[in-house]
């Protein structure tokens, strides 16, 4: 039995009720539906806002982060007044303001192999709004094991991908991408960034797919991948097929339960710690400031050239991480050197490369130039 709509709800959803494909029955279906949104960031923001506005009866939000001002360029569910608050609480308050008639469940915890099945089994559809490979593979496998549709989206700079991975009726994410790229290969970690409006475009497409599935109308993107490029304003579609050797949804699947996704992807999914190369190799910004007063030290900045326009240490040489292997001859392996980047992760990778090439007197600036800006030079911006 579908729930009835109240007098207020009939008014609220009247523009839906006027569409024959939705109508009163469709709106009651939405009221009876539940969705789980993994991540309340760039994609999760428009997804949650539009699905709440559409009258989905129950929305689950999973995130463990707090709102930071650098989120607000794209994560429009949060606001300046919620900076510092838990993202799930900031998002819940916004959703209930938009639509007090729905239920919003919040899970202020990382989505992991330990809790994912328990959380996701409560919901009809899972929406993947994650920003990292381990959680993406976990989200896929959970959907396959629970037999639920996984409305997938992914963004990068100006590019977006959307599909519906539903192993009962078509391929899953692993059919297309059996393995993640090795860390640092594709895409290079030095090339982050995203056009703020991009998750808006892609997230609303994701929300559209979820509504279509819940209403049982139209042609969901099962077995199709949408590729969007904002610069070309191009929408391309390709066909996806179930991979006969898929390790989770194929006939000979050998992955029958959730695995260690961080080990599988070779990267952590939850990066709360500042970039560090380990205690032996790290130097803090404060220590470095003391050292440069008394010693000659070579400083090597491995960030991209456009990042130097934001903040720089004038005495530092710049070799972007991607070019370092080919430009080692420019450096003196006998010289004492401190490597840094924005937050310490890329420089930790640079340090590994330098050490394996025979450099012995190298250190990693823990927390990068951002730590320097916080601890030593407040005139430099943090980004």
């Amino acid at each position, binding site marked *: 039995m579908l729930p009835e709509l109240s007098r207020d709800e009939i008014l609220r959803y009247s523009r839906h009720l006027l569409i024959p494909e939705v109508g009163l029955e469709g709106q009651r279906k939405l009221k009876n539906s539940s969705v789980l949104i993994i991540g309340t960031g760039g994609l999760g923001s428009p997804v949650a806002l539009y699905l709440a506005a559409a009258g989905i009866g129950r929305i689950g939000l999973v995130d463990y982060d707090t709102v930071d001002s650098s989120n607000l360029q794209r994560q429009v569910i949060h606001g300046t007044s919620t900076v510092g608050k838990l993202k799930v609480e900031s998002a819940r308050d916004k959703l209930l303001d938009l639509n007090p008639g729905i239920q919003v469940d919040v899970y202020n915890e990382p989505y992991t192999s330990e809790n994912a099945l328990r959380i996701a089994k409560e919901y009809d559809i899972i929406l993947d709004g994650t920003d990292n490979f381990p959680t993406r593979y976990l989200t896929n496998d959970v959907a396959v094991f629970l037999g639920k549709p996984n409305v997938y989206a992914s963004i990068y700079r100006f590019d977006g991908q959307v599909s519906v991975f539903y192993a009962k009726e078509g391929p899953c994410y692993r059919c297309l991408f059996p393995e993640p790229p090795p860390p640092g290969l594709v895409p290079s970690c030095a090339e982050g960034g995203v056009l703020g409006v991009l998750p808006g475009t892609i997230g609303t497409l994701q929300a559209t797919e979820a509504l279509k599935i819940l209403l049982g109308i139209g042609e969901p993107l099962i077995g199709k991948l949408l590729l969007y490029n904002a610069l070309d304003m191009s929408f391309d579609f390709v066909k996806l097929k179930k991979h006969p050797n898929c390790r989770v949804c194929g006939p000979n699947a050998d992955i029958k339960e959730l695995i260690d996704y961080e080990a599988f992807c070779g990267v952590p999914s939850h990066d709360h710690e500042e970039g560090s190369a380990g205690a032996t190799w790290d130097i803090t910004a404060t220590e470095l400031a003391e050292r440069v007063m008394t010693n000659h030290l070579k400083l090597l900045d491995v960030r991209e050239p456009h990042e130097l326009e934001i903040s720089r240490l004038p005495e530092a040489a710049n070799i972007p991480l991607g070019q370092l292997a080919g430009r080692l001859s420019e450096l003196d392996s006998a010289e004492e050197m401190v490597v840094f980047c*924005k937050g310490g992760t890329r420089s930790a990778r640079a340090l590994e490369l330098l050490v394996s090439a025979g450099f012995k007197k190298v250190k990693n600036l823990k927390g990068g130039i951002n730590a320097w800006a916080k601890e030593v030079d407040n005139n430099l911006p943090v980004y």
Partner: protein
Amino acid sequence: MPVLRIPTPLRAYTNGQSEVNVTGSNISDALADLTTQYPALKPHLFNEGDELRPFVNLFVGENNIKDLQGVNTPIRDSEKIMLIPSIAGGANVT
């Protein structure tokens, strides 16, 4: 001449080119031509054994070459080949 569409994450290795004209009558030849023109791309597409990396997907028109004849999939002159990467963006880059 077939055209190979380069996704944003790999454009750093093609001097920013979004499309590269390639020669060849099948995918294998086209990729050989592509990596001759842009050698820095090679490690991103092939492993040490010169096999296409499992996360690299190539589509001829709408179809994945894995569903056709793999790297032996023939290509016509005006064909559009798309390289589709796995992406996961938006996270804080440090």
